[in-house]
């Protein structure tokens, strides 16, 4: 926890162990018993502490399954998934998850929603409230603390859910297509904000997306997955300076990376 705070603010510069998250020979089936569809096959990878990894792939490539396994929400079949030196067995307190939809509880105000992890994990209310207010400020929702979720736009709701995922100061932030439902303009703004939040907090982030520009823009490394069964096709380092602005999209490195991912996709699609 303390190292986390020390690292806060230094952002991308601070790096920890290279195999902070380690996945070895992971294969998993969908559905009960052995006769389900093979969802993931022979996944091998490591994720460095404090880095931003994006996972991109067409729908049905098992990327959400992979994230749910990392979150401890899903049992995995064959292989080993180690997180901070411990094999994953169920959910963990040092992980924050942002889902595809904001999943704010409609009967709670925004502040109460953001404070939900504190209630569940037994963090004292006063301390949690203070932190929730800071986080709401960070995601630029000052003044909306006492509004109900339905009074906020989709983008604002998703920002509130990011604040909620950060409340208990998790070391790892797992994001499952968090901006998929947003319009292009809001999405770009959210990408910039997420980069800022990540640089300020210094957490390890794994973000799933089906948008190639989003993956390249946000990731230190992009994991490219192929569908049915989901395999890790390629790991692509993105060598672009931080903080990145939207102008980076016209950078040759950005264009080259996007193109090479797109080629992988069309290659994979030909198997269908």
């Amino acid at each position, binding site marked *: 926890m303390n190292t986390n705070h020390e690292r806060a603010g230094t952002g991308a510069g601070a790096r920890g162990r290279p195999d902070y998250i380690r996945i070895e020979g992971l294969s998993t089936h969908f559905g009960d018993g052995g006769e389900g569809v093979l969802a993931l096959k022979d996944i091998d990878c490591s994720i460095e502490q404090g880095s931003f990894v994006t996972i991109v792939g067409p729908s049905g490539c098992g990327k959400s399954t992979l994230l749910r396994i990392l979150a401890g929400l899903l049992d995995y079949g064959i292989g080993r998934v180690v997180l901070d030196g411990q094999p994953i067995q169920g*959910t963990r307190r040092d992980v924050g*998850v942002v889902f595809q939809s904001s*999943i704010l*509880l409609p009967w709670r105000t925004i502040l109460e929603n953001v404070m*939900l992890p504190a209630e*569940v*994990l037994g963090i004292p209310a006063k301390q949690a409230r203070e932190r929730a207010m800071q986080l709401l400020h960070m995601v630029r929702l000052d003044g909306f603390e006492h509004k109900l979720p339905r009074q906020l736009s989709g983008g604002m709701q998703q920002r509130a859910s990011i604040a909620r995922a950060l409340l208990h100061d998790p070391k790892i932030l797992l994001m499952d297509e968090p901006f998929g439902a947003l319009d292009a303009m809001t999405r770009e703004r959210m990408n910039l904000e997420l980069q800022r939040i990540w640089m300020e907090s210094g957490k390890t982030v794994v973000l799933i997306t089906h948008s190639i520009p989003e993956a390249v823009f946000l990731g230190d490394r992009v994991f490219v997955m192929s569908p049915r069964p989901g395999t890790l096709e390629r790991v692509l380092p993105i060598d672009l300076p931080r903080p990145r602005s939207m102008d980076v999209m016209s950078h040759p490195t950005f264009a080259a990376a996007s193109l090479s991912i797109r080629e992988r996709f069309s290659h994979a699609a030909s198997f269908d």
Partner: protein
Amino acid sequence: MTTAMLAKTDSVASSDDRASPPAAAAIQAKPKRRANPLASTRVQSILLLAALLGAWEAAVRLFKVPQHLVPPVSDIVVALWRGLATGPLAKDGFWYHGGVTVTEILLGFLIGSGVGLAIGIVVSQMPKVEALLEPYVAALQSVPKVAVAPIIVVWLGFGIGSKVMIICLLTFFPVLVTSIAGFKAVDPDRIDLLRSLSATPWQIFRKAKFPSALPYIFAGLNMAAAFSVVGAVVGEFVGAQAGLGVLILQMEAQADTGGSFAVCVVLSVIGIVLSSLLRRIQRRVLHWMPADASQRTVNA
């Protein structure tokens, strides 16, 4: 029917409130329009009721309908007055019999829906038990519960107990069925959210499942409230010593149809008060729902 009318006047009142700013603007343009009380929908619906009652009175007197078939409105009003102008313990008064009926309704409603909710909660947390019980619940739900009223009176006697039992039976099923449906309809994402935070099963229930199921549970409670009045009257018809149902039977035996109508008015008022109390609680508990959405769930 009466609850529907109540809901209608409610919505009329609220739409009036919402429309007030433009209406205020209209005052300046046409000051005379606002001054006419006949323009108000509420006044119009009261006038409509008065007209209908007047037509009833006139028709009965004009066509000389026998009073034991259809009494004139004035007879009903007189009977209502006579019944209400009695002491709380007078055996021929509305207060005594009404008190018995209301007690039966409240006890039966609270116990029946309480047990229904409790079993609904327990069963919902155990998917295997739920699958096991589901066909029986469905089958029992389609048994007309009032049909067993005579048996229950044989078992439990003519006192208040048999009536409470009948109301329990009538209110138990809608609350059980809707609460099971409510827990089934909980967005699995909400459960995943709580699970991702390592929440205990109790925390998941308290913070996600129960509040999510509440709109359904209230739909069941609203049904149960309407059934409980029916149950009380049916139970009293079958066999009782006191209650408004007994009073109706006594009055019918004396061909006092005006009196029976008056008791029906009292029963309607009890039903309206009960359902509007429930609605008020619902509005407070489900304050986070948009008004039209909560209304829709109730009707569903």
